[in-house]
């Protein structure tokens, strides 16, 4: 008997420990729950990649470089923790598509987000500030070191690949920029006035080339000579001419949720969860008395375990996910109901409390297993079928089914056995009885 009590104690201690961990990680915000965009507020954009012109074997590479490009632009936007990922969609439905998913937490101006991502590359020209060192060209310090030059990327007419070579050197690939008439005039002025200063050319905020102006350039051409390979130089010229994305993309869906709406959804979700748990526990206590109390303990442990799992996996919580969690709270006690009803039947058959507990568990098990199997089937199919919305539901629902099976069976069983009810007396019967007289 003492082993069972020790085990019950261990479960309680571990449960409290996990609960404390979850609680403290929220209080000091060291490991906050991951919230989906519908709860945190933000914009999600889904693009379809137009891969018609790309060979099958190059698709993965193109998509990866597309992702990198977009990621760079998104980072430029100053969004915290953006998500940019490629997605392969729809195989059974007859269509096969490569998609690009962009999530921008906190961005609620949909049009601005679309423009940011869909734009052609931003070519910028900047002057190094007087007295600054040229060595650091990381994008984070660009604004500190460089000031905008009078000329901008809009003044660019075209770009082309050329090979330049000094005497006795190998030909070096360079990109030659041709400015339009307006640009040529500004550029001539600029170079004339700033001989000796460092001039920077930036693509999407990243420095490509930072030459020193040696003389005035009156003819409206500039040369970018980084340490390019011919392929890179060609790509850069193409990007500047036609837009920088390696694969053309088309916007297929957007979703924007404001932060206030998301915040309200979180609050409503928490409120519903608390009242839901309260209602279930109250019902279990009133109907099943002592076993009901143990079911309430098991339910609490279930909730703690789920919250810990949400953090550890981590699960991105959405409104649908919270709904699944609340639904699973109602279902988590189902196993307890099955067991307790069976126990009561055994008690009525004249068995002692301990025997009734034992047989009740044994006989209810096949039923619990089967009911969870049918729910698992749904969860798995939903997860496979899912858009991110449905996946959020299915993941939490499936997790809930598995974890609740564990807590409802093993935890409540351990606790019931640890109580060691041997007596056949009236009080024990009352404790184990239920609202019905029979």
């Amino acid at each position: 008997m003492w082993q069972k009590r020790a085990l019950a104690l261990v479960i309680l201690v571990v449960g409290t420990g996990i609960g404390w961990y979850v609680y403290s990680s929220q209080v000091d915000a060291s490991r906050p729950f991951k919230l989906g965009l519908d709860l945190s507020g933000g914009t999600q954009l889904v693009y379809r990649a137009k891969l018609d012109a790309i060979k099958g074997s190059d698709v993965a590479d193109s998509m990866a470089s597309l992702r990198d490009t977009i990621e760079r632009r998104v980072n430029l936007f100053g969004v915290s923790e953006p998500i940019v990922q490629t997605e392969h969609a729809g195989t059974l439905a007859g269509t096969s598509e490569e998609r690009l998913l962009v999530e921008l937490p906190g961005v609620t101006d949909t049009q601005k987000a679309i423009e940011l991502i869909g734009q052609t590359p931003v070519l910028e020209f900047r002057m190094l500030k007087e007295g600054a060192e040229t060595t650091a060209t990381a994008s984070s310090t660009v604004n500190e070191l460089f000031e905008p030059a009078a000329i901008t990327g809009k003044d660019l007419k075209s770009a082309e690949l050329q090979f330049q070579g000094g005497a006795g050197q190998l030909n070096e690939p360079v990109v030659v920029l041709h400015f339009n008439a307006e640009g040529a005039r500004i550029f001539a002025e600029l170079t004339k006035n700033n001989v000796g200063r460092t001039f920077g050319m930036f693509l999407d905020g990243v420095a490509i080339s930072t030459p020193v102006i040696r003389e005035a350039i009156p003819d409206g051409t500039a040369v970018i000579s980084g340490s390019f390979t011919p392929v890179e130089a060609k790509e850069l010229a193409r990007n500047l001419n036609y837009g920088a994305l390696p694969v053309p993309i088309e916007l297929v869906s957007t979703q924007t949720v404001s932060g206030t709406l998301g915040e309200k959804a979180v609050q409503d979700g928490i409120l519903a969860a608390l009242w839901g748990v309260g209602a279930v526990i109250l019902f279990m206590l009133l109907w099943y008395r002592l076993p009901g109390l143990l079911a309430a303990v098991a339910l609490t442990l279930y909730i703690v375990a789920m919250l810990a799992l949400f953090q550890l996996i981590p699960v991105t919580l959405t409104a649908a996910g919270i709904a699944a969690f609340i639904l699973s709270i109602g279902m988590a006690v189902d196993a307890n109901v099955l067991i307790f009803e069976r126990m009561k039947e055994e008690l009525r058959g004249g068995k002692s409390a301990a025997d009734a507990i034992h047989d009740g568990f044994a006989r209810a098990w096949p039923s619990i297993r089967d009911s969870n199997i049918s729910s698992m089937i749904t969860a798995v199919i939903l997860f496979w079928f899912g858009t991110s919305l449905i996946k959020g539901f299915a993941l939490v629902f499936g997790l809930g089914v598995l974890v609740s099976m564990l807590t409802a069976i093993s935890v409540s069983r351990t606790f019931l056995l640890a109580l060691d009810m041997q007596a056949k007396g009236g009080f024990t019967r009352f404790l184990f009885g239920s609202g019905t007289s029979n």
Partner: protein
Amino acid sequence: MFIVKHRNVFFAISALATLAAVVSIAVFGLKLGLDFTGGTLIQATYAGGRPAPETLTQSLDAAGFKGYSLREANTEDYILRAGNLAPEVRENLPSILSPEGSNPVAIGQLTEVGPTIGLELRNKALIALGLVLLCILFFIAFAFRKVSQPVSSWQYGLIALLTLCFDVIVPVGFFAFLGYAVGVQVDALFVTAVLTILGYSVHDTIVVFDRTRENLRINHDRNRKEPFEEVAGRALSQTVVRSTNTSLTTALVLMVLFVLGPESTKYFALTLLVGIITGTYSSIFLATPLLVTVEQWRRQKGK
């Protein structure tokens, strides 16, 4: 057992419910939502009072919106459904939705779904529905694989399937009515709710049937003669508390979720709630009575 004895009453109730659902679906129809048709949904919140519908309609017409629907929601919101937006429209949304700047607007939610994604989701939903049905069919076949007397096992399975159809038709009919009454549309969450109901409800029916077969086996072992009607009735009264209680706890949380929960999952919770109540009703008041009736037919044919 009361329910088995008065089964004709419950057959009538079930038939009425089915009829009501079918009529509701036929008359009101299911309105496919954004997820499946593609288009735009905008939730505009006017903290300082919303403009009159006519004012807003004028402004929308002027901005080139066509075939849109505008609906008041909560106390200070408008829900606008329209086709896909042009970039300049998207950019000017705040000013379009707040004509003359009189009613400051906050866009709570803006969802746009392209037509190809809608089509894909529709296909996926149908495939998922088919797959779940198929898996549950296998599940039922597996649960009733052992041959039993006097009703053969495929008939148990068939009745379980019938009650499952009932479990789906009633919430769908209810949803069609909701669509008519408050403009709720069928979205991916609705499909999810229906599939979840399928997975959850099938089991209650199986439990009652299992109990009937267990009782039959015990009777057989003890050489006891008992009319099938009573065996089934006894199984029902043995399982009725567990069936109602498991559903009750689930229904409790769903009710709370419907009343207090986030706006976006309100009708999801309601659909699940209706489905679970229907599922429990059918496993108690429909499945076993049907089983008894089928057994009676067999005996009468045998004579």
